[in-house]
């Protein structure tokens, strides 16, 4: 029976994305000089989980890259390699590539193979201890078909350069250098390598014998190289002893333990499939623990058998106080257990299920309000109990609705978390010093917004870094701290969530913006208020950057930002002061699924108008309504003439044409355009559950969706932005026609 794995792919994608995010934030936070072993372990675990998942689901490209990354990280966490900036950078880069690969598997562009190859090589180089000593280490040539695996050890004295030797060996097949030769070390650290080759073992021995004195090399053939690399070499008179703990299948274990002295210390933990471990413990010298774990399929590590009495196996030698080994090992276990417990506290549910739940609760609320309506007609004394129950039901269903809504809510940290990285990379690129401060990461907002917010916010952050915060020299000249401060802040305010991007940079330059606006032919005047001037930067094609950098300045950013924010039903404002800084404020409704709206009546049809577009409503005096020949009517509101749009006319509702002075005008604003919508009646303000029309029907111009009213009927939600836009187009069209005549 074939088992369809693809059904789990989504889970894998989600989890991998989480691991990547986790890994990145840890990498960014880590102190390169003194890394916390807990952090290193966590980073390793993330890479390890990705590898495991990728291999299980058959994403071999992901698995291969993480495998190389994991090897490197493993060495780092075991203190075999000091953590360096290079390693952090390479790991971050791997994270990026993995993300791209993930996107590819989700149906995006494929990732450039060359970049992966370059990165892999870089990671492999970094993972060779003392990589500097063996710069030209020939690494991982394509696997040789039907090959044997030879474990090669080289001891001094070496008559020739080790590099040259490696090169000759590499010519025979794929050579993996496990450890570089270190003659200075005491005891001498032998060079170790695994050669995967089609040549017979004897040929290799012959070649080495030709180059080296016989006592300075050793070749052991690994016979069972297949797949998991289970090679168990039980050398005569040697028995595996001590409490060697294995966790999974497939090891090659070389455990020559000279009798008697054996060891309470061969305390070796393996984590997964396929190891070869050679851990000879010379008699009496068992001072340290060969706690060596390899995660490669079928490697071999040869310790010097003949070495001096003090021989401390190499990897352990790095573990300065060897008893410390025990706690270090124990720690990740505990942490893993902790993480697992945390994992059990949350479950992964598809948004469809949540939406269904939301739907059902919405229905319940409607049913409840119907009950309420019928109940209100009853005698309150006679039916006291029934009425009490109805009001109890009301409270319960409201609480239930809130609880269900909160399922969709996620902390904004999911968006903010990417910025430490963005800021770090960008500040480096721009040679600026920037400190990022994040406030209110736990502020919750609808999951739908989380995804849509990241692009606009990234634009704003990049803008602040590029145009806002000055270079350290400029800042010093202005008497500011050299390090600029970028603050991301999120908080709730009324029914909306506010997100601020604040920098303490140069601020917006009014004169520059105005002159640029004039250049681009925008209608501006010197008497415009600051707010109006700042709003100009949202105009398409507007950029005041002195030169176009690859960071920003192409003038496509800000208008897209505003468009995206408006599409989410929000708005963006700017406040700025020269040399003090700039704050961009984004305001969004709390959720997409529920909206505050005003229900209105036109003839006998009910429509809903989103509240965030409404400025005010009024009943005009006849004298305030003017008719412009052939262009419809305008209303004068405090000296401003606004076009009147009849909703009845817009939707061709059959009703006697009403007069503006007999109906109600609702002033709405969209993209800084104000329009007066003419309606018959205001019914009231309430929250509406938004449903889309496209699910079973199609997009209708002028409508942004539908909702269900208290009586169970459907009311349509007006798309104010579209109506305003349409009105504008109509006006332009008329002007054009007028000009033509």
């Amino acid at each position, binding site marked *: 029976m074939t088992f369809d794995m693809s059904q789990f792919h989504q889970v894998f994608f989600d989890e991998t994305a989480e691991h990547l995010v986790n890994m990145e934030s840890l990498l960014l936070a880590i102190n390169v000089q003194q890394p916390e072993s807990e952090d290193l372990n966590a980073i390793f675990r993330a890479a390890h989980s990705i590898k495991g998942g990728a291999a299980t689901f058959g994403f071999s490209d992901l698995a291969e890259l993480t495998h190389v990354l994991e090897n490197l990280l493993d060495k780092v966490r075991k203190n075999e390699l000091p953590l360096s900036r290079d390693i952090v950078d390479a790991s971050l880069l791997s994270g990026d590539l993995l993300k791209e690969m993930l996107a590819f598997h989700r149906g995006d562009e494929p990732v450039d193979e060359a970049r992966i190859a370059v990165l892999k090589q870089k990671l492999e180089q970094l993972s060779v201890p003392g990589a500097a000593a063996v710069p030209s280490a020939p690494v991982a040539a394509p696997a040789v078909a039907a090959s044997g695996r030879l474990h090669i050890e080289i001891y001094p004295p070496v008559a020739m350069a080790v590099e040259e030797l490696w090169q000759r060996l590499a010519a025979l097949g794929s050579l993996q250098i496990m450890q570089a030769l270190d003659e200075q070390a005491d005891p001498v650290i032998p060079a170790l390598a695994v050669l995967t080759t089609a040549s017979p073992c004897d040929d290799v021995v012959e070649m080495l014998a030709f180059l080296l004195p016989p006592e300075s090399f050793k070749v052991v053939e690994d016979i069972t190289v297949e797949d998991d690399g289970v090679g168990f070499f039980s050398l005569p008179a040697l028995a595996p002893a001590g409490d060697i703990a294995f966790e999974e299948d497939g090891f090659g274990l070389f455990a020559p333990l000279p009798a008697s002295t054996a060891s309470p210390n061969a305390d070796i933990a393996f984590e997964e499939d396929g190891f070869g471990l050679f851990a000879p413990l010379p008699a009496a010298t068992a001072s340290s623990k060969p706690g060596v774990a390899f995660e490669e399929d079928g490697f071999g590590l040869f310790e010097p058998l003949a070495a001096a009495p003090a021989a401390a196996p190499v990897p352990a030698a790095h573990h300065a106080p060897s008893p410390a080994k025990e706690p270090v090992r124990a720690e990740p276990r505990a942490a893993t257990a902790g993480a697992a417990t945390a994992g059990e506290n949350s479950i992964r549910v598809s948004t469809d299920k949540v939406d269904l739940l939301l*739907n*059902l609760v*919405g*229905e319940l609320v409607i049913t409840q309000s119907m009950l309420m309506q019928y109940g209100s007609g009853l005698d309150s004394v006679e039916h006291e109990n029934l009425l009490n129950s109805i009001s109890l039901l009301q409270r319960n269903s409201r609480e239930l609705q809130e609880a269900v809504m909160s399922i969709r809510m996620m902390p904004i940290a999911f968006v903010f978390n990417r910025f430490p990285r963005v800021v770090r990379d960008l500040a480096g690129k721009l040679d600026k010093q920037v400190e990022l401060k994040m406030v209110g990461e736990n502020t919750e907002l609808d999951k739908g917004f989380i995804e849509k917010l990241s692009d606009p916010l990234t634009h704003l952050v990049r803008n602040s870094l590029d145009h806002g915060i000055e270079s350290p020299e400029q800042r010093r000249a202005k008497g500011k701290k050299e390090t600029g401060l970028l603050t991301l802040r999120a908080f709730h305010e009324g029914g909306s969530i506010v997100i601020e991007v604040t920098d303490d940079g140069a601020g917006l330059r009014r004169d520059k913006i105005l002159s640029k606006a004039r250049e681009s032919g925008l209608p501006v005047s010197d008497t415009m208020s600051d707010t109006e001037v700042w709003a100009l930067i949202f105009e398409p094609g507007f950029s005041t950057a002195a030169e176009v950098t690859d960071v920003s300045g192409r003038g496509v950013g800000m208008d897209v930002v505003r468009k995206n924010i408006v599409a989410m039903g929000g708005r963006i404002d700017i406040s700025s002061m020269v040399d003090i800084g700039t704050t961009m404020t984004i305001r969004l409704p709390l959720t997409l699924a529920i909206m505050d709206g005003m229900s209105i009546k036109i003839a006998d*049809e009910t429509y809903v108008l989103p509240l965030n577009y409404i400025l005010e409503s009024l009943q005009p005096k006849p004298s305030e309504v003017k008719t412009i020949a052939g262009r419809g009517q305008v209303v004068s509101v405090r000296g401003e003439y606004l076009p009147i749009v009849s909703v009845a006319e*817009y*939707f*061709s*509702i059959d009703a006697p044409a009403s007069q503006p002075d007999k109906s109600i005008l609702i002033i709405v604003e969209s993209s800084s355009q104000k329009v007066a919508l003419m309606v018959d009646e205001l019914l009231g303000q309430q929250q509406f559950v938004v*449903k*889309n*029309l*496209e*699910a*079973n*029907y*199609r*997009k*209708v*111009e*002028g*409508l942004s969706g*539908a909702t*269900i009213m208290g009586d*169970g*009927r*459907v*009311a*349509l939600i007006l798309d104010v932005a579209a109506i305003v836009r349409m009105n504008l187009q109509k006006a332009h069209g008329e002007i054009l026609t007028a000009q033509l005549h």
Partner: protein
Amino acid sequence: MGVATMDANNSSDTDKARREYLVFALGKEEYGIDILKVQEIRGYDAVTRLAKSPSFIKGVINLRGHIVPIVDMRIKFDVGNVIYNDFTVVIILNVLNRTVGMVVDGVSDVIELSGDDIRPAPEFGAVMNTNYIQGLGVVGERMIIMVDIEKLMSSDEMALMDAAVAANV
């Protein structure tokens, strides 16, 4: 052309198995649709008019929290008496993962037919375009026009879907 291929499909699908069809009336003709596409049958009420749509799209209703469009086949095919009262019937269909309601003159019964009972439809003057007709079902004296309701509902002329969605069907 559709007739021949449809017939071939039918004979392979339904030769052995008998399938059930819901029969509804439009004017003087009887039509049959695959009962598995039918979600429920309900009365006609509380339809919210949709502006800027063709006249046969009556509007949308709230079907237990889902916004469902209602098409009146009587207007679409210009048959029957277009009146709405307590006896007006709406067949709620589940086609292509969408829910659509369709007003007809009446629902008569459910019949069981095998592939043999369905004859290829000649070019004839039904109110529906023959593209949507799978064949003619014969039950005793009655002749039932078998309709591929999915094809009909996703067609351009029904204007129920955005062009992009319909193209993906």
